[in-house]
């Protein structure tokens, strides 16, 4: 009986606590230290996830991530959102990504897509390109380009997702 209840609990725990991968193609990218990882290892722990494609030389991208950085701690406290910054810097600049990110004290999870493989599979043309996933890993919104103030609109959507609401089609 105990074993049965235990296994039942495990099954329930599995349903509720299983970290699911995001609804993105499985492509090999590198973490900020240059180690190869699969994009399917990026998890949504029941909280909204933002994936932002950027590069160290892309000014609007850096503006967007800097603007989000100013409020990121508040965003995380309120909604648990995770921002994943995937750099498409190629070998010319990929070694600079770690000092760039750390030098600016950014708290994001950063990956490097050195030959744009994930970018290509996700249909991204120009950057910055931002994707928003709900707690189940489902893609609910994407946006190309950055105008100052866009991060506030993004945050409104993140708040809605965190409250369990669905977003209107965009």
């Amino acid at each position, binding site marked *: 009986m105990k074993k049965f209840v235990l296994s039942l609990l495990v099954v329930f725990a599995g349903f509720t606590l299983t970290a699911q991968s995001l609804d993105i193609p499985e492509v090999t990218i590198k973490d900020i230290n240059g180690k190869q990882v699969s994009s399917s290892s990026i998890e949504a722990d029941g909280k909204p996830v933002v994936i932002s494609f950027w590069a160290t030389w892309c000014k609007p991208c850096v503006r967007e991530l800097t603007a989000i950085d100013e409020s990121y701690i508040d965003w995380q406290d309120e909604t648990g959102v995770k921002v994943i910054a995937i750099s498409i810097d190629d070998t010319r600049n990929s070694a600079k990504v*770690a000092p760039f990110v750390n030098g600016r004290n950014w708290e994001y999870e950063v990956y490097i897509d050195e030959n744009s493989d994930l970018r290509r599979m996700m249909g991204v043309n120009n950057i910055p390109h931002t994707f928003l996933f709900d707690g189940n890993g489902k893609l609910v919104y994407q946006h190309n380009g950055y105008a100052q103030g866009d991060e506030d609109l993004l945050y409104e959507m993140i708040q809605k997702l965190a409250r369990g609401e669905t977003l209107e089609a965009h």
Partner: protein
Amino acid sequence: MARPWKLTKQPPALVKKLLLIIAVIGGSYSLWSQEETAPDYGELTGNFQFDGYFYQEDSAIGAFGSNYPDEKFLGQGFMNLNYTRGNFRMGVRYENYQNVIQGFPTEYQGEGITYRYAQFVKDGLDITAGNFYEQFGSGMILRGYEERGLGFDNMFDGVRVKYEPIKGLALKGVLGRQRKFFEKSNGLVRGLDGEFNLNELMGFGGNTQYILGGSFVSKYEAANSPIYNLPENVGAGAGRFQINSGKFSFSGEYMYKVNDPSFDNGYIFRKGEGLIFNGTYSTRGFGLIVQAKRIDNLSFRSERDASFFAVPINFLPPTTKFHTYALPALFPYATQPRGEMGFQVELTKNFKRGSFLGGKYGTTVVFNYSVASSIYKEYYDATDTLNLVKEGYKTDWFKAGDILYFQDFNFLVKKKLNRNLKMNFGYYNITYNYDVLNKGISDEDIVAKGNKPNMIYSHTFVLENQIKLTSRKYLRTELQWQLTDEDVSQEVINDDFNMGDRVMLLIEYSVAPNWFFAIQDIYNYGHPDVAKRLNYPLASVVYQVGTTRFQATYGRQQAGIFCVGGVCRLVPATNGASLTITTNF
């Protein structure tokens, strides 16, 4: 005379079927569903871009005669489609050039399906048949990649197998022909790559991570020269490492290539060697990177007589900073495949809020210095034809050459002054070897002239402000001022438009999330030739909705240089209106 156009290329039957399949499935697709009951039709993603330009004649900037297109309106576009279902993927790309816009490689003519592939990914095995992009290590030995904005695309058409037999060991094999605009290269490329994550393979933990990698690539191209005994198979090997330990990271790659006489190297049978090294230190609020590089005879193409954007197998990364502000970007650096050595240092420091230099909101400062010069060369006597062809020259690994190619010292200060005002201030001091970087003149010719190449020295000051008007409305301004000092011959002044002091003003008004309006002017007030002291005004409007973006511009654009790796393309000055539409789905 009207160009005698052939009819639109009919895509082969197989591709038509592929498109039909995608259309049928795409028409009834749904996103991944978490419920087990909904049927899985897979997922379709893609993007589309169109660029059109309407040109006006403008004799003041040289936009007339053959610098002015007969067609008056030039347009090009592409569409990518990718379909994923379970372990299976496929995709196509359609490209269209009717005709290419000015500055784009003119080898793109007409239209057709240029990219199609099928891929199967499961349990550590990844097989692709058709077109693919791939990079081994840093790309110094092999890199198939695309830069759509420049018109660069050297992808492979063939087969690629990736396999991870055990955790920590990643193997790749490629075999194929490269894309050459709308055709294929005559040469065949095959390669193998292995990357070993020693921590995972040998099971040790700890904070230090060790990664090793090795690659072998060889190409085959038939030869029939009446003058040379050309090698038909040319092989290259590379080894790389990466060590990360806490705040430090070191990486490097060494490449060796056997005799590969080509148009790029003047048909010498010399071996090629290259070395890149990076060291970085990063911690909270501070980042430092040091890069060193030496390249000797590393042009590596699958066709020995190709040049410019055509079929390079490898990618030689420039170790200089890529500038995006318009005036410093007038002097871009491109790697010299014949040989160069140099290093780069970049330091990023964030002064925290409340600290003395940080001020109320914090300040970020970035210092960057890079330099590139020729490698040391000792030439053989002009009568020693055998060594001239076999070796070309003698060199020494530890000695730099006498010719300075490029030097760049710059810094950027980013500071938020108050709730509504952010400021960036930058200074760029660039030394630019015009003969080497703009004209492709060889070291031998420069040395024969007494090593007095045409040089341009520039100082540029940049002030960028970002002003918040309301939570949605922002104003962004850029003021750039460039002082140049040209140590050049009268010939160069006669030829080139990009000479003399200039000033630029940009004002951009944005209303999130949809609108951008911008107006800019570059005034070349200091050009030595009075007739070329021109204004280059440009107005642009951008409308963005979701993932679709419309951009229209009108005005004059300066002549410029687009560079990719060791290749630069001169873009003539233009006057007219452009429209760009991009979307994702």
